[in-house]
């Protein structure tokens, strides 16, 4: 394959692009953006306004997409690793976000649901919620790695029980944080017009990229995902690496929990981060990553997350009827997934080749 590509270096420009993993999410993003611009040129407009506290904030569809897509993007980071190492997906992230958010509020409010002032600093509450979320991640990981339960079945346990656990953490009460500064994490920091979740997402991506660059995590994860037995023969501990990926996902969950809870200053156990696991898995799939494990591209998953958000925003923008919304979403997703299927891409490449040879002749 490589030799062939080198031979026809320039002539096969298109087919080379198509073969790139990043092609699918970027292609999808471009299609959606172009569609939006054609339908309504104001799509790209970004306005500078002020919010009710007099702080400058940027508005416009693009900003909203960057803002609201952050949570799925952060989860997609962890989900990519879990998918690569274990060849399965964690469907409990939504429930885990509820637990993380609930723990965060419990520590912040100290059991008093209408606390006027914060009972403990946000950083402490966040650290506690990180530890809890990582423990639940480790629980999933142990079930998958040591007990060898299918990831989807193993995480089904937390998926069903998670929201009840979240409610139990706060005695089934709904704490509300009245402290204004707590809203910064899901809103705007005074003086900075770009939404904070975007920065948090950026920080997560950069940290993860550095970790992947300077440690062997990428190599080990892929080795375990591609062939567990041979990685074991080469001196790796596959079970430990699988657990590690679930723990990293747990950390991502805690970050998302902070953003979600901060957005509303409260929590609703049954609807917080509802169905977000499906979006996160879809983001990984749209990123062109094999859901069966092995090689992965994290940035592609993150872009996949923004494709989903762009699609959601587009549907809201065109005011699609409520009951038809899931159907529209499904149709677009099916098209994207079909395009990204290896067989379709191979066919596309061969068509390109034919076309080009004809042109040359």
């Amino acid at each position: 394959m490589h030799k062939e590509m080198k031979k026809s270096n320039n002539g096969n420009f298109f087919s080379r692009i198509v073969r790139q993993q990043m092609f699918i999410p970027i292609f999808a993003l471009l299609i959606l953006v172009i569609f939006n611009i054609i339908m309504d040129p104001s799509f790209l407009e970004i306005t500078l306004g002020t919010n009710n506290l007099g702080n400058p904030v940027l508005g416009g569809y693009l900003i909203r997409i960057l803002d609201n897509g952050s949570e799925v993007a952060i989860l997609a980071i962890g989900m990519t690793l879990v998918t690569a190492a274990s060849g399965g997906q964690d469907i409990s992230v939504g429930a885990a976000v509820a637990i993380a958010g609930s723990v965060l509020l419990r520590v912040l409010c100290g059991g008093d649901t209408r606390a006027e002032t914060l009972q403990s600093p946000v950083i402490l509450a966040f650290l506690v919620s990180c530890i809890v979320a990582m423990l639940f991640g480790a629980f999933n990981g142990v079930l998958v790695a040591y007990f060898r339960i299918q990831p989807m079945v193993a995480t089904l346990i937390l998926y069903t029980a998670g929201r009840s656990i979240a409610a139990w953490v706060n005695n089934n009460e709904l704490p509300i944080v009245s402290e204004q500064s707590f809203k910064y994490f899901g809103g705007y920091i005074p003086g900075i017009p770009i939404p904070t979740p975007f920065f948090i997402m950026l920080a997560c991506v950069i940290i993860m990229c550095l970790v992947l660059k300077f440690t062997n995590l990428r190599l080990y994860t892929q080795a375990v995902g591609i062939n567990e037995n041979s990685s074991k023969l080469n001196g790796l501990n596959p079970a430990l690496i699988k657990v590690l990926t679930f723990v990293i996902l747990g950390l991502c969950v805690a970050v998302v929990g902070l953003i979600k809870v901060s957005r509303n200053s409260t929590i609703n156990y049954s609807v917080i981060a509802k169905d977000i696991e499906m979006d996160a898995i879809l983001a990984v799939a749209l990123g062109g990553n094999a859901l069966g494990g092995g090689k992965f591209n994290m940035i592609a998953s993150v872009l996949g997350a923004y494709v989903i958000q762009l699609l959601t925003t587009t549907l809201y923008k065109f005011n699609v009827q409520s009951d038809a919304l899931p159907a529209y979403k499904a149709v677009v997703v099916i098209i994207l997934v079909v395009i990204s299927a290896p067989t379709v891409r191979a066919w596309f490449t061969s068509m390109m080749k034919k076309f080009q040879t004809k042109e040359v002749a």
Partner: protein
Amino acid sequence: MKKKLLTMVLSVAMVAALVTGCGNDGSTTTTADTAATDDAAADTATDDAAADTATDDAAADTATDDAAADTATDDAAADDTADTASSGELIKVGIINNNPNESGYRTANDNDLKATFTEENGYDASFSYSNVNDEQIAYAQTFIQNEVDYLLLSAADTAGWDSVLTDAQNAGIKVILFDRVIDADESLYEASIVSDMEKEGQTAVDWLKGQGLESYNIIHLQGVMGTAAQKGRSAAMDAAAASEGWNIVTQQTAEWNAETAQQIVQSVIDSGQEFNVIYAENDDMARGAVAALDAANISHGVGKDVIIMGFDCNKWALQELLDQNWNYDGQCNPFQSSYINDIIKTLESGGTIDQKTIIMDEKGFDATEITADDVEKYGI
């Protein structure tokens, strides 16, 4: 040998996982119960308050509601204790409810039931929770086997109840529906105590009509499509928009979710369309909408640019009304237990229920008239 051992360990692990996974509802119930016990310990005051409100309500309603023409007085509890002491037997009640974590409404509803159906009041009550219809039916069958006297049911879904309720009837068990209606023959249950969602919507829409705005440009945030609350509250708005010529800027489901509501309203703001009313079918969605308005510096509340309407009367939502940040909140009364208690008492004393469907009294609160007492009394 080693392999055999490993296989055994693995199969045990899988069975264990199966049991954990499938027996999950049991564990949910237990957690909920533990939470409830904690609640009882920590929040007896709140529970009492809820029960008080309900009794007050019932007392107030007896005048208007002839169905509840019974002894719903404040010392009902004391009477009950006397009854039990004399007969010495507890009435066995099986209660099937939706998951109390579902919403603030459900939590209040569950606490209210737990506060009423106690041993002190002469009841031996068992609770089971599920949001899945099939599981609820399975619970009902268990209760029938356990020979409860009364089956109280808040059905997750309207269909599929005929056969199990017939079984109950054959076993001599009386069924009382609360909160949700079902598609089954009326003869299968003694009474159903429900909120009239159409009426709730109508009250809200009438209030909006009464505001006499120059133009009505409405953002309509719907709940999960197909639920009774969504259908009732949307129907009233749709009808009014058609008859009054109101302009619905957008009508979209936010699935009871604050964040989704925020996104929808942001999308309208970004599109530059004019609007002056937000009609959200629950408090959470109204909260999300308000967050979007705040971020765009659009004023809302009494005498401001945008009218905010919500439903369910959460305590924090009524507080927003009191602070004049919102304009209207419609009540969805979760305190059915006093009504149920009256019905059981009537049936036990040999009386009959002359009205199958009992619609609870529900209010709508206006920010200009609400008082701090209302927040305490009606907030859930």
